[in-house]
């Protein structure tokens, strides 16, 4: 590890803002030098934490359609965790314009954190137009922030594909909806209902509507549970008002309850699944279907990735190793595919 990297790692652990930001700059930097630094850093963190389930930060994902007040809710939740003495990092993800590649990262406008507070950090990331929603950078960013902060809040916009990604990043996924939006029915139809671990009806200041939305939601969850849609306990549904700060404690309790329900084993299994999905999509990005078939198809590639992860390597490092294997396979005409 170079001195440069050691210095930054020390800064990261001390939650020095410039160092944390520097690491995230590298995460977003697609040049080889930056990417290998990130890989080295992730490897180091992976080796230190093992599967990381106990001593790493709480990772909470908040998702839902635009305009339901996610940013305000994240701000309230962040402040509540800070008041409870936990350090907090926020990652807000905004869509990128397909035409210009530009993006307006507007969520900071709704977050009122004390700028002098060293234990609070916020970064906006844009999706960079990758199919599948969350950018590759988000995985690394969350992993790195979780090594330094007690709580990492990830906010994503939109419904659909993004939710299936957030489940690979967060220990607890919270779906935020608003009263009268008709969102719950849509989620039911889209099958998104099975992804969130918690449901929040925000903007509960519109009391009557909110009560109805909450009871609709609860009965939908009840029905789903009855037909066996959930492997474990059905998710909780609560109401909040980010505007007035109501229900924030309930939300924190529900998040803790979900975390306890998962247990160390459940959490570590979930993270492994997340890392596997992340490395598989990294592999596809770098080597494509052609590469996958050269190594014997999806099953084989996933198995190889899994083995690498269990050995304690970071997802980018595992993909790197597999890449080398692939190169050997292509170069050596006698190389037996099934031996891989």
């Amino acid at each position: 590890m170079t001195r440069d990297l050691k210095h930054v790692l020390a800064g990261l652990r001390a939650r020095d803002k410039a160092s944390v930001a520097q690491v995230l700059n590298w995460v977003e930097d697609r040049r080889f030098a930056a990417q290998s630094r990130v890989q080295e850093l992730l490897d180091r963190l992976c080796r230190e934490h093992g599967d990381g389930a106990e001593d790493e930060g709480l990772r909470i994902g908040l998702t839902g359609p635009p305009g339901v007040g996610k940013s305000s809710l994240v701000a309230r939740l962040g402040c509540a965790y800070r008041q409870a003495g936990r350090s907090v990092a926020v990652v807000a993800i905004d869509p990128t314009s397909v035409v210009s590649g530009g993006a307006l990262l507007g969520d900071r406008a709704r977050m009122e954190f004390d700028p002098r507070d060293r234990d609070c950090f916020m970064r906006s990331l844009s999706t960079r137009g990758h199919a599948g929603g969350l950018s590759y950078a988000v995985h690394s960013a969350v992993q790195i922030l979780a090594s330094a902060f007690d709580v990492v809040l990830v906010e994503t916009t939109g419904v659909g594909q993004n939710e299936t990604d957030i489940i690979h990043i967060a220990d607890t996924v919270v779906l935020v909806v608003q009263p009268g939006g008709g969102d719950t029915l849509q989620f039911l139809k889209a099958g998104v209902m099975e992804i969130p671990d918690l449901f929040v009806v925000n903007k509960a200041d519109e009391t009557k509507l909110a009560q109805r939305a909450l009871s609709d939601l609860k009965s939908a969850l009840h029905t789903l549970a009855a037909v066996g849609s959930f492997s474990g306990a059905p998710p909780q549904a609560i109401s909040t008002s980010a505007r007035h700060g109501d229900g924030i404690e309930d939300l924190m309790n529900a998040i803790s309850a979900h975390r306890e329900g998962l247990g160390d084993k459940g959490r570590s299994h979930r993270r492994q699944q997340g890392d596997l999905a992340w490395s598989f999509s990294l592999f596809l990005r770098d080597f494509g279907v052609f590469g996958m078939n050269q190594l014997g198809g999806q099953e084989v590639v996933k198995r190889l990735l899994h083995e690498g992860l269990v050995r304690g390597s970071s997802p980018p490092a595992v993909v790197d190793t597999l890449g080398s294997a692939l190169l050997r396979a292509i170069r050596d005409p006698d190389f037996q595919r099934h031996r891989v």
Partner: protein
Amino acid sequence: MTHRAQETRDRPWIMRTYAGHSTARASNALYRTNLEKGQTGLSVAFDLPTQTGYDPDHPLARGEVGKVGVPITHLGDMRALFDSIPLEEMNTSMTINATAPWLLAMYIALAEERGVDPRTLRGTTQNDIVKEYLSRGTYIFPPQHSMRLITDVVIYTVEHVPRWNPINICSYHLQEAGATPTQELAYALVTAIGVLDAVQATGQISEPRFEQVFGRLSFFVNAGIRFVEELCKMRAFVELWSRVAEQRYGVKEEKFRRFRYGIQVNSLGLTEQQPENNIIRIVLEMLAVTLSKDARARAIQLPAWNEALGLPRSWDQQWSLRAQQILAFETDLLEYGDLFRGSHVVEAKTQALVDSAWEEVVHVLDQGGAIEAVESGYVKQRLVESNAVRLQAIESGAQTVVGVNAYTTSEQSPLTADLSRAFLSVDPEVERAQIQSVNDWKTKRDAAAVREALGGLRHAAESGENIMPASIQAAHAGVTTGEWAFALREVFGEYRAPTGVGSAHVASRGAVEDSLHRLRRRLDDVEHRIGRRPKMLVGKPGLDGHSNGAEQIALLARDVGFEVVYEGIRVTPEQIAASAVEEGVHLVGLSILSGGHLAVVPEILRLLREAGRPDLPVVVGGIIPDRDAARLREAGVAAVYTPKDFALSSIMEALVSLVDEGQQHSAS
């Protein structure tokens, strides 16, 4: 002037100058001189801390005290401001909104002290919060609480200060934010409807009294350089207001249905290039609101020719006052009836505006009304889009602006030969003196009475009692502006309005589109070289809420391909530095129009150095005199942009270059 003509002349409008700066004492001297010069009313400009409810020693007030207006922190300041000016004879207009109940309370308290019956007081509190959320930015509380304060003032004055105009619905600032005439008409009307509905909903006003309330509503309008259209806009206002009176509220008495308005002509169109031309623009714009007898302004205040350069001096304001006096007293304008009744051209144009504006009124009412359309960001987004279209038209040359994009060859103007003296500079010592005077004030007052008054204020805020009596009591007790506002902040909370930038979309055409394409390709190149997408922070530090410039830069930067972090108005230097560092931006752009740049910008540079980012290029845009621009560059600012830099795509070009160069020098 013939004798006969004098007999039939109409009474001229009230002539005012928007004025106030430095201290209450200095502003009082200015007012007295202005009255001697023939001004017939006063228009008080307050500084931003007073407008946003901060005492001068608050961190957010840094660099802003006495800049864009006079600081009025307590009753003592109010006494000094109106020293030797008889309140009972004055017609005083106050540009005050979020803290309107408080400033009016101090004015009433001063009248009581002097033994003047408040029932004789005449004047106007602007008190229109909707346009603050949309364009001017001096709001404090969330919409529903702001609306409640407005209705409190309306209900109180109708009873106790009956000759006062409790609210001046402002379409002025909407045009400054880029509104088209149709939008200006529509959004002013839905604001008025919002206020009237809110007053009705309190149930505190009886049916016959409601007509009086309706009659007390007045408007504050803008007039731009397309003066024929603007003239028709004023006639359309008259017609639409009468429609609202009849159809929505059933107002029967003719005198209560009248559309009463005051005006400040357009500042948006005033140019920094060949600034002497502005006096001609100002006069033409004044014609739009005076030529029609049927839709003539009740009160006029004109900007000064040099407003794009800095704060106007007394002489600059006198020049504008003389323009009014020449039109009213030298010309024969006031000898005739309405000049345009029966004109097919004017009537057709007026009707077209009435129709399009009404359509938009209905559209907003269908969304729930003005407050809802503010909270959803709908109106703001429409304004941001219109302004982008306007700026594009100037940049592409589709809209001619003499001296800016046409006829730019010019002699050296003797008026601006010594630029450092061509506008007013406020002594930075003013801030320290005002802080000192507030401290003195606080030691001399009765602490127990202050505590009790603040308790009464909080009680009124919580219980829903009218806020005015408790505020007047607080004024007598010596409460300060900051204390009044913080007592209410505790009860109501604070608000951040939608920026309108996130979802605004503007189609670009012609030359502007070409340069956009070119810049996008360049930015892609830069991204390849530096490994990630160029990212910039657009920051609006200080209390100045005029966010149009910042919004347009943020919007265009996004369309060029930057990742843009924009946090809206009123952010502190600490917040800007923290955001720049945490977000890992390549560039910081700051917008400051209040004149506070010399205090705020070096502070941000210092904080960036402290945070380990001395390398970060910082650019500043605003009304910044050349001399100050040089000082900012010395302090480390990479570039300074002023109103004369109208070609936004050249600014963008320079910003892309800055990121490119900055990255070539830095290691990561």
